Structure formats: structure tokens, C-alpha cells
């Protein structure tokens, strides 16, 4: 669905996207994560056709996005900082979206509206709270019946009930219509619940891109203890991202197939060995730790 090939974008001397490539399958829910300033929003603006890349290609369904109105009719965007026309209420905006997006489903919009009872349809949207504005943006975006939704911090500012409500609606659409979702968020715990694919980016580059299952199995936390305080030397084919020792107990963050690491470590005869799955947040932190991410020292 989305194909980004070797995209470079510079703002003056600053390189926001550096030979960036990514790939999103149709029907996937792709979580885009990265530290502040990684280039996520810049990437999203390229995907929306707002920015034009200096080099490379940004393709959706094999077509360039920039200045492609027909293609943009198949996608909706909820940016972090939402724009609404002055003096427009939700109904006015609904009419605007209806005219703009041929596949806009008014009946569906009305149906969704019932899920958001706090929204006054006749009230000027700009006068609503930030959370309510997000809800309106979501209602409009999903009622356009897009094939692709691009969400930048979509549930930021929403209460837990509304978050759940929105995600359940998205998931239902994904299941029913094969909607593809690209979501950028710092709420990794939430992404972990909804995403099936994850891309981690930093400094304008994509560090990792794979399915969440693969990702979670590719990095493992192994707790081991030996008779002696000193841990025997690990085989060289085990890539340890992090090692934390507390007396005889050692915690290893190991990259690679967990079974291989488990088997190799077992050969060292530990008196205790536990293999634990990593959360997305942990993976994010450990992966970026290797990228000289500033938070590394704090975690240690």
C-alpha cells in the first residue's frame, strides 16, 4: 500500500529524512515510533502529499502522492495539530468532507456520531475542547471510508474510554473493509495492543521495520544466575544489547532468535534461567540505546 523509497528531505542544512525507505502492506496497522525529532511527522507530511521530497519516491498504491488528488480521496489524515475552518460546526465540516471525499458515508457518520454523544453538532468546532476536536476529526476521517488512514498522535488528549472507542472503531473497519492504518504515537503500550507492524525510526532513518510478533521475538530478556558472582563468557554468536548484573543474577537483553540464545546459554549450566518477552516500549528503548539515544544513561 505504502512504499517509501530512499527519500531524502532537507530543511536548510538539517537532514530530516535521510535516504529513508519503508513499506506498509495493505490492511496492516503500522505503528511508527521514534524519539522526538526522529522525522515521523516529516514522513507523515510526505505521505499526505504536503511536503515534496528532495530525492526518492513516496508511493501509495504505486502512485506518487504529491499533487495526486485522486489518490488523496482514498486516504484521510488526522494530524497532531488539527485544522478546522473558522466558524464551521461539525455539520458544516461533514458537508465539506462529503463534497471532498466521494466515498464519504453520511449514514455511517451519523451512526458513529451516536458513539460520541458529548459532541454538539451545531457548535463551532474551534470552540470545542481539544479532546472533542480530536473526536470530530476522527468521525470525519473514518466516515470518509478511506482505504488508508494516517494518524499522528490520534488519541492524544482523549480520555481512556474515548481512546478505546476510537480504536475499536478503527479495528472494526480494518476487519470489515481492509483499511490500512499508519499511526504515529509515543504511547507504545497502546500501539502494542493495536499494531501488527512496527517501524522504529531515528535521525531520519528507519532502524527497524517488521511485524510486532517478529519484533517481540527477535529481542528477548533472559534472566540467568550462576553459582559464582562472575558470569561465564557468553558465546560470540549471541548479540547482547544490554547486560545488567545484580549479584549472581544477570539480566541480558539479547537480539536474535530466542531459542538459539536459550540453547547456547543453557550450555553454560546456569542455576536459574528465565526467558521473558519484551514490551514494545522496552524494545524501543533498547534499540535506540544502541543509537546513542540520550535516554540510555538514565535507563541504566
Amino acid at each position: 500500500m505504502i512504499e517509501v523509497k530512499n527519500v531524502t528531505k532537507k530543511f536548510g542544512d538539517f537532514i530530516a529524512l535521510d535516504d529513508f525507505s519503508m513499506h506498509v502492506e495493505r490492511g496492516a496497522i503500522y505503528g511508527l515510533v521514534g524519539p522526538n525529532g526522529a522525522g515521523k511527522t516529516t514522513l507523515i507530511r510526505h505521505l499526505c502529499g504536503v511536503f515534496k521530497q528532495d530525492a526518492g519516491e513516496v508511493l501509495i498504491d504505486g502512485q506518487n502522492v504529491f499533487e495526486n488528488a485522486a489518490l488523496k480521496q482514498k486516504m484521510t489524515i488526522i494530524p497532531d495539530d488539527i485544522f478546522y475552518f473558522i466558524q464551521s460546526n461539525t455539520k458544516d465540516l461533514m458537508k465539506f468532507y462529503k463534497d471532498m471525499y466521494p466515498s464519504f458515508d453520511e449514514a455511517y457518520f451519523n451512526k458513529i456520531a451516536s458513539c460520541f454523544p458529548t459532541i454538539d453538532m451545531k457548535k463551532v468546532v474551534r470552540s470545542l475542547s481539544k479532546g472533542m476536536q480530536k473526536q470530530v476529526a476522527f468521525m470525519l476521517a473514518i466516515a470518509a471510508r478511506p482505504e488508508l488512514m494516517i494518524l499522528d498522535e490520534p488519541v492524544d488528549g482523549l480520555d481512556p474510554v474515548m481512546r478505546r472507542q476510537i480504536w475499536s472503531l478503527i479495528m472494526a473497519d480494518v476487519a470489515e473493509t481492509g483499511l490500512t492504518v499508519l499511526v504515529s504515537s509515543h504511547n507504545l503500550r497502546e500501539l502494542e495492543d493495536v499494531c501488527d507492524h512496527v517501524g522504529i525510526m531515528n535521525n531520519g532513518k528507519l532502524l527497524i521495520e517488521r511485524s510486532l510478533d517478529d519484533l517481540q521475538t527477535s529481542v528477548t530478556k533472559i534472566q540467568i544466575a550462576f553459582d559464582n558472582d562472575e558470569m561465564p563468557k557468553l558465546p560470540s554468536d549471541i548479540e547482547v544489547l544490554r547486560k545488567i548484573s545484580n549479584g549472581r543474577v544477570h539480566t541480558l537483553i539479547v537480539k536474535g532468535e530466542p531459542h538459539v540464545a536459550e540453547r547456547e546459554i543453557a550450555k553454560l549450566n546456569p542455576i536459574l534461567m528465565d526467558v521473558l518477552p519484551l514490551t514494545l516500549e522496552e524494545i524501543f528503548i533498547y534499540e535506540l540505546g544502541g543509537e546513542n539515544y540520550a535516554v540510555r544513561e538514565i535507563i541504566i
Partner: protein
Amino acid sequence: MRLEKSLFNMALFKKNISRTWLLGLAYVLALTIIMPIQYLLRYNYNVEKNGFVAGYTPQMDLTWFMADASNSEYGFGIAIVVVAITFWYLFNKRDSYMMHAFPVSRRSLFFTGLLTCIIVSFVPVLLISIIMSIIGLATGGASYGVIWYWAFTVLVSTLLFISIALFAMMCTGQLITAICFYVGINFLCFLMEAAFRMLAKRLMLGLGYIQMKHFNALTPLIFIKNACDIKVMLRGSTEAYDYIDIQYGSTWYLFAYLAASVVITIVAYILYKRKQNETVHEFIAVPLFKPLFTIGASFFIPLVLACFASSFVFKIKYEYTYGTRFAVTVILSLVLGVAFFFANQMMIEKTFRVFNMKKIIQCAAFTLLSLVIFMCFRLDVANIEGRVPESEDIEWAAIQGTYSMVFTDADDINKVREVHNNLLKDKGELRDLVHNSNRNNKYEPYSELTFKYKLKNGEYLVRVYEVIDTEAEAASATYLSAVQPVLDFINKPEVIKEHVLGNIWDDCTVKDVSISNITKKNGAGWAAYAADFDITKSQMESKNKRVYNALLKDIDDGNLFITHFGDDVFGYDYNITYYNDFSLIISNQREAYFSDESTFKGVDLPPIYEQTINASLNTRCENTIDALIEEGFLESKDSLIKKTDYQSYYDSTKEEYESR
């Protein structure tokens, strides 16, 4: 039509209209007050006060009203407002990003926005034109041609200003800057010319003349008003008008502006297509314009400031020579230019960190270029100072000292050229004339001598020289040889009669003679005029003619309308000139009066057949004064008061009044 090829987007159009209809309504209301309501009030006043008499019809009145109406000003005002509201999203990151994320191409965004602007600004004008036509029909004064020519002028100028506003909007990422650019672009040519003229005035001899009437086509706000306006003239006598003469402005210019607006709109569209969204909030959004703006602003603004500073120094120190003035202007321009260069860089790049080697080299190159331009001025490489047009290129030539004299005859034109060339023989003498005449802090008054040529290609060439009295202490022999031929020429009686009295001086009736009788007894009233003579019209004209003939004799004797240099602007010698107002009206209904004054100023008036001649009589005008007394216009010579006496009397009565 495929969506990406579409120029129009209905959803966007509806949204645009929902944002701008209030502006359109306000425009309609404003125009309604200015046009139909104002005209109806005027019509009502004329009906009530019997204004429609002596052949003056409602149709004439409506024609006159429409001809007087503003045109380009409306377009200039509405265009920037409607374009700013329609394309507001270009100046806010959030709005711009979202608008460009919607499924609508820039082509649609641009042309739908343009259509919105056109509709909002055109409909009110069309509506008002229809209302004015209906009013014309109802009041029996339908002047459809004038009404719809006015509408066409307003619409074309509006379209032009919309295109300029669009261009300005695409050049920057800041709304306030866009508005400044809009005003700046509209007056760019004039401002640049004014800056060069200011420089030329300080660095060159005879230059520095700026006349507001000479705005060229690149300053459309003023030019449309001047060149495309409707001019009307009531025909007939003051007792009864026969018809109204209507002269429409140049339609050719309007079509040229129409074509220009299309071109500018296309350029604006190309800029929009290439505009990068990340340039929102940037001072200049088009990379190519950054160096252009830097150079332009760093050259012209310091230049103007330096010229002002140079004049200021000159005002406080008369000993300031031409050479010093040149040095002060150039050094100040260069120093300020460097400061402006880096200030512009800071504005464009939004940082104070602009002092790198690359920028310093660029600045040095710019400064060198500026210096070359200044030296070109100083050395007059284009022979601007010494230029006197060839006879065959001249439509008319004029000299203005105390009076404006316009010469159209080939011999006269050659004579003007001859005295002008003679004046330029020793430029150095005139250059430091004011300096030399005021060398020891002894102020010698100076006046201006102007040579103006209207060329056959429509251009004007104007040179203005500062001159002092030929009898002044500082007037050298070289100076006298330069300027005396000019005085000899313009003070010839036949030249005075032809160009001060006018072309009908020897074939005219004198309709009226008037002189104020001033006595100190008159108190606050001061002046009194002779009572109406109880005689026939022909007797009156004979009486007037006798005064006129005496006036001609005074001119022949060199007593009146003599130009001196260094006098005040009216050429008065207060010690001999009378304060009394004296005027006469000369008329010839068969031959149009050629007004030297209007022609010199470039005022294009409809033909006139009579003219009021005002003269400041002086003690030498014995012939005229005697005739005035003899014919009963003036009680006696006691009724005359000299300007100096009047001033002292006025001062004393003022003191007396204040002491009371």
C-alpha cells in the same frame, strides 16, 4: 474531466464563498453609499434647488457624477482583502498542511480561490452598475456608456490588482509581508525611480524632478486613474449648456492591463505550484527572490536614507559643496547598504548568525557594484546631464521661471534648445552655484529654472537648475553668459504675450476686468471692487479692451510679467509690487485657448475658450494703472497698496487687534 486536471472544486468554492460573502456584502454596501445613494441625494438636491436649469440635464449630471467616480482605488482595496481571506491558509502551518492534505490539487486550490476572488469583487461592481443604470433610466438621465465604461475600468483594475495580490501572496510565507509586498509591487517602479531621482538630484546637475502626474503604466493605481478616466466637459455658455462632451480614457490600456493580469496570474500560479509548504512563516518563500530582495532593499533603502541625510547636512551648512555632497551620499549609502545587507539576511534566514565568509564576500561584491553605479552617476557615463533632445524628437519644449511657457513652433523649440545647450556649457559653474553664492554665510536667494521637453514618443525630459539673481554679487561672468540668454528669450514682449496671456492675446474680447480697491478704512473687508457699470455689453467690452491694450503696452515696455532669477516663487519684488488683486478674462469662442500652464503640468483638459489672466501690477505699470483709473475700475492711485506696505499695515493692525 479527471480530478487532477480540474481547475475547480465545488466543495472548496462553497467554503471560500462562506468565508468571503460578508466582505462582498460590505463592498456592496460601501459602493451603494458612495454611488447610488450619493447620486440620489445629489439628484434630489438639484431638483429641490432648481439645479437642472440652463440646459443642465439629469443625464449631464449623471455623466458628470460617473466621470468623477473613483475607479482603480476600489480594485486596489478589495483585491488584497479578498485574496488575503481566500488564501489565508498559506500563512499558517497547520492550515496550510491540512489544506494541502485534502484531496484537491494546487491547481484547483488556486483557480477556485481566484474564481472566488473574482466573484466577490466583481458582483458588487456589476450590481452597482445595474442600479446606476436603473437610476439613470428612472431619472431620465441614462448614461449607459459612461456607467459601463466605469464598470469595465473598475473590473479590469480589480482583476489586475487581484493578480498582483496573488503574486505577492506566493512570494512570502507571512501575511503582513505579503500585504507590504502588494503595496510595494504596485509602487515599485515609482519608488525605484524616485530613489534614483533623489540620487540624481544630489549627484547630477539638473535632475531630481518628480512630478506625480508622470506615473507610468507600471504604477497602475495612479496610471489607470490618469489614463483611463472619463473626462467630461459641458458645452455651451454659462447661461445655457448645449451638450456634454465625453472623452473616454484609453481602452487600449485597459486591454493591456487585462493581458498583464492574465500573465501575472499565470506567474503566481507557477509560483504556487512550486511553493514548498515548509516555507510557511518564511519572509521570502521563493528562493530566486531572496538575492533579488536583498540587493534591492540593500541598495534603494540606504540610498534614500543617505540622500535625506545628505540634504539635512546641506540644509544646516550651506558651504557644503557638490563634491562633499557626493561623498556624503555615497559613503552613507555604502555603509547603510552593508548594514541592510546583513539585516536582510537575518530576516530571510531567521537567525543572527549570518556573518560567514560566503555572505561577507557577497556583501563585498554588492558594495562594489553599488560603488560602480554611484561612479557612473558621478561621471555621467550615460550623458544624462548634458542631454538636450533633438528637435525632430520634440513635440513641445517649455521653460519655467516665474511663468510656464510652452513652445510648439519649430523655431521656438530650437531657441529653447539653444539656450539650454548654452546653459550646459559650463556645468561646474551651476553645480556649485548655491555653494559659491553662500560662501561666507551670506545667504543669496535662489530660484528654479526648469526646462521641460515633451517628446514625440510620449516621454518627458525635465531638467531643473537652481539659479540666482543675475545682479547678485556671486553671479560671475560665466554664470551670466550661461543664464542671460534664457532671460532675454523669455522676457521678450512677444513671448510674454503669446505664452503668459496666451495664444488668443491678439484676437480676443475682454469679458471682464477686475481690480480690488484697497483702503485702510475698509477695516476687515480690505478690498472693494468697482460697482457694476450701467452700460451695454459692447460698451463694457470696449472699456475692458482699453485696459487690456494699456496692459499690452506695459508688456511691450517691459513693465509686467518679467522673470528674474532668485526671486520668490511668484517673482514678486515686494517693494514695487501692488497687493491689489488684478485680473481680466479674455475670450475667443472661435479658437481654443492654449494653456501653457496646464500643458506644462501635463493636465489634459478639454478645450476652453476663455481664460482668466491674473497679473501683479507694479509701480512701473503706469499705462495699465492710468487706464484702470480712467475707465473707473480703480478709484485713484491711493487705492493701490504695495505688498510691503500691506504687510506692515497688516502686522500693525494685528498687534492692535491683539492688544484689544
